[in-house]
């Protein structure tokens, strides 16, 4: 399969954004227009006058990618070109579920025919690992650091896929860059469904999470295998498919200990209790989705 993201971009070794963008483009195909809000992916792929994109690509601002996508879609319709290109928005977790929340909500409520892929690496990586609404419980970031009286981020992740389901989106899916075929197939399905569709891709960041650059895929897979990141599809509001873990389910410690951002949980007094709380979050996913 042809890669529509050229090598030679400025992503880190083991970069999750590069993998996610490549897989999303494999799913969407070359007849697409990409809208990319501000973030690592934008910065590392388009230092003027260079570009890594072999598809038409537009970056406007941090918080407006879904609105820009709405405008591209409307223009294609008005100019009679709607069948010539899919509209694919790709943004990070901050751009999607924090600062871009109004924009994506408006675009989905209006029912534009576009696919939004959230590449979720669970913090503001481009600016130096500050917490976002997608940062998981007890993760240490530069603005939610662990300290003498803190275990790090004291809130669970915002459930963005559920919010998009609530918008009446015909298709919402979670995926992970640890499972490329899963991601490619879900993006392909999403772009082929008419209306606003949403794919939320879990994407471990070597720099921000603190693991070896060779371990991106392993960490991604472990998030799924512990039940912390369930993979499922929701069509017309109903869960239609879940990736089962079955007997191979792993304790959350196996995931947490791979990453520097959770290191304090293994050294601080009271850490075991905190890990138990994270295990409870995984258990709830296992129960709700029948993992």
């Amino acid at each position, binding site marked *: 399969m042809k890669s529509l993201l050229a090598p030679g971009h400025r992503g880190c070794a083991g970069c999750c954004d590069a993998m996610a963008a490549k897989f999303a483009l494999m799913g969407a195909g*070359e*007849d*697409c*227009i990409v*809208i990319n809000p501000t973030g690592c992916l*934008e*910065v590392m792929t*388009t*230092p*003027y*006058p*260079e*570009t890594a*994109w*072999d*598809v*038409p*690509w*537009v*970056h*406007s*601002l941090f*918080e*407006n990618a879904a*609105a*820009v*996508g*709405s*405008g*591209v*879609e*409307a*223009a*294609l*319709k*008005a*100019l*009679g070109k709607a069948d*010539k*290109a899919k509209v694919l928005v790709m943004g990070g977790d901050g751009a999607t579920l924090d600062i871009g929340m*109004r*924009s994506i*909500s*408006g675009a989905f*409520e*209006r029912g534009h025919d576009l696919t939004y892929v959230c590449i979720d690496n669970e913090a503001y990586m481009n600016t130096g690992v500050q917490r976002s609404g997608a940062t998981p419980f007890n993760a240490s970031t530069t603005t939610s650091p662990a300290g003498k009286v803190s275990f790090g981020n004291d809130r669970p992740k915002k459930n963005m896929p559920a919010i998009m389901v609530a918008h009446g989106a015909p298709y919402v899916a979670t995926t992970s860059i640890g499972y490329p075929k899963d991601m490619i197939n879900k993006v392909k399905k999403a772009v082929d469904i008419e209306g606003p569709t949403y794919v939320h891709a879990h994407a471990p960041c070597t720099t921000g999470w603190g693991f070896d650059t060779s371990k991106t895929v392993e960490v991604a897979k472990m998030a799924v295998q512990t039940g912390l990141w369930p993979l499922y599809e929701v069509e017309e509001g109903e869960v239609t498919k879940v990736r089962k873990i079955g007997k191979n389910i792993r304790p959350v410690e196996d995931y947490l200990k791979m990453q520097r951002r959770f290191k304090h949980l293994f050294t601080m007094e009271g850490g075991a209790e905190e890990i138990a709380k994270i295990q409870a979050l995984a258990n709830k996913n296992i129960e709700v989705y029948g993992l």
Partner: protein
Amino acid sequence: MAPENKLDKSKMVVVEGSYAVAHAAKVCRPNVISAYPITPQTHIVEDLSQFMADGEIPNCEYINVESEFSALSALVGSSAAGARCYSATTSQGLELMHEVLFNISGMRLPVVMTIANRAVSAPISIWNDHQDAISQRDTGWLQLYAENTQEISDMTAQAYKISEDKDILMPSMTCMDGFILSHVYEPVVLLEQDLTDEFLPAYEPEHVLDPKNPLSFGAFADPNYYTEFRYLQEQAMQKALKKIEDVANEFYDVYGRYYGGLIDEYRTDDADIIIMAMGSIVGTIKDVIDKLRDRNVKVGLLKVRSFRPFPVEAIKNVVKDAKVVVVLDKNISLGLNEGALFTETKSSLYNTDIRVPVVGYMIGHGGRDIKIDTIEKIIDEAEEVMKTGIKIESQFTDVKEELL
């Protein structure tokens, strides 16, 4: 010598200013309209929505966005995809667009947007002044101000022609005074479809988002490149100075209507006192000038149509032989105690041989009525300046001392 305005009275109809603007936008054949309702812009977008509902705007999509921020953001995508784009807003909506304004201009997307000028909160006020648009002065948008509903309507077509020119490619705000023009019913010639098709060619951008020829829009520029982007925007603004004049003349050739290019003049030939202003206040000033001319007061008007680009040479040329220049501003730069037109007029004259005194009046904030008496009093004070020099350089007008 300015062309004579040949207004065909047989073609005139009495409509609301907002309707005239909406009709003009329709006649310009936009492909994407994206807007969010805000007083006093609402009637424009309501009329456009009705045109859409009645199937009167072919090849067009109307996006009912969830905010002004998204209204303009959507047009980044639409314009980059090759669509002719229109929006309208005012006041808080325009301020909310601030970040996107820079973005559209920096990406050289020729969007046209009508501003129904309104004061800015706090305190919240729905009434007219120019603080909203003036506050967006440095965002890289052309800012054109209209005197009446005929001019703002016709200015829509002019703005597209200027903005979409390959040497310009900068967005335009066409500014009309909120309520005073947006909600007034007066006779106008609605922008003619057949003449507009002749005047305004179809929008055919060189660079579009197209899978057959993938291009990247909106890359980031490091210090090796950023300066040149800004420089080229300023070059485009300087080219727009001539383009605005040319387009006003071309418009006259096709439609027979003319309101000035960068500026317009009224009884300035022998004027000792030149009043400068923008927008609907110009009509009031003309009435006062006629009255005072009967009393042999040598006063004339310099109407500024283009605030960006700023018409330095045109202004210098008009005021060079005057004895005093009086600038009226419906805005203030807090901390300087001056309105923007006043500051920039002074700046245009500094480092030149022109030594005319310039005084400024900030007037009509938050929709306060500007009366004929007030203008007369200002002109009386200008006569004093001629005799005794400047006593107060810049001041508020009609401040109610009892409320302070």
